[in-house]
């Protein structure tokens, strides 16, 4: 595939690279070992204990990604035509890829569309936040008393690098799969599924079900947060010159795409396992 840029894009990319290199040189002298590593900014709101704590960066980035996605969706709908443009064709390829996957895996026909909605939304959201985690941006760290804002020293803090997002989505997928199963088989048959070979297996089955969201969420979290920390460490070692850019590209784009795909595909697989009769 040949990539071609228009004049405006060339100017933008050149300016971006100049700014990037300038910030890298500027950072070169004053960089010290990142202080607030492993710490995140939290605010407290007057609510019961666990609910009262919020991670504002995650919320802000979620809103940003959501608005990007919704803007794309609206423009997709506005410029919809039977003979697709380049942009529409790209979106259609992604959508139809997931749709074909769902259609292949889900055994019951009336659950194809809901599963497609859930998994596709998961994929788009996680993919975009992982991609954002691959672009150098503002890193918001916390020292003991104040916020530390570093420009271009870290990737953008992606929402999937926060365990809240991943656990929520994994538990949600678990609940959705069981709700679909109850809808399909009825409550009694669904309960029978837990004592499937014989009643001795009941604790095993429950633990198996509970282990699903744990591995499901930690996989994404480990990859994204671990990748972010590794980029930070290696950037410190390489003093923010050319190496981190390559690392950002690798961790953000390659691992991010794979993990988003794996996350949504596992969601499809868990739902389809519950729907099998």
């Amino acid at each position, binding site marked *: 595939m040949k990539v071609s840029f228009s004049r405006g894009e060339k100017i933008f990319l050149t300016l971006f690279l100049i700014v990037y290199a300038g910030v890298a040189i500027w950072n070169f002298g004053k960089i010290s070992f990142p202080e607030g590593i492993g710490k995140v900014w939290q605010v407290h709101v007057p609510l019961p204990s666990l609910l009262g704590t919020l991670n504002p960066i995650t919320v802000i980035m979620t809103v940003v990604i959501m608005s990007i996605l919704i803007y794309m969706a609206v423009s997709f709908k506005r410029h919809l035509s039977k003979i697709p443009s380049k942009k529409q064709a790209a979106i259609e390829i992604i959508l139809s890829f997931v749709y074909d996957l769902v259609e292949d895996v889900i055994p019951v026909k009336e659950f194809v569309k809901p599963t497609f909605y859930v998994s596709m939304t998961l994929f788009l959201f996680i993919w975009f936040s992982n991609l954002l985690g691959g672009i150098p941006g503002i890193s918001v760290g916390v020292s003991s008393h104040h916020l530390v804002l570093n420009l271009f020293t870290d990737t953008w803090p992606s929402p999937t690098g926060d365990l809240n997002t991943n656990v929520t989505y994994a538990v949600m997928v678990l609940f959705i799969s069981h709700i679909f199963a109850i809808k399909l088989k009825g409550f009694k048959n669904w309960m029978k599924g837990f004592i499937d070979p014989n009643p001795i297996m009941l604790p095993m089955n429950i633990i198996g079900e509970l282990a699903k969201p744990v*591995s499901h969420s930690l996989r994404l979290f480990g990859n994204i947060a671990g990748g972010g920390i590794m980029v930070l460490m290696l950037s410190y070692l390489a003093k923010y010159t050319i190496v981190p850019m390559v690392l950002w590209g690798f961790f953000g784009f390659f691992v991010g795409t794979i993990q988003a*795909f794996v996350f949504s595909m596992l969601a499809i697989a868990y739902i389809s396992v519950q729907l099998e009769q």
Partner: protein
Amino acid sequence: MADLSMAQAVVEAAKYIGAGVAMGIGAIGPAIGEGHIGQGAMESMGRQPEMVGTLTTRMLLSQAVAESTGLYALLIAFMILLF
């Protein structure tokens, strides 16, 4: 860091060692398993090049499943470190 008594310091050191060992040993199994899965997938791709699309998705899925034990190790390492 604040001043620690000897016992607290030993516990603190043991935490770091324990987390590192848990993560390090826990990563061996998934690595071997994923390698086997990748080998099998590559061999069957070489045998049937027309099945590459299906095989790639299946390979990623099974690697994700094989990875889950490593992720339990990661969970344990975090729990040791942070709580």
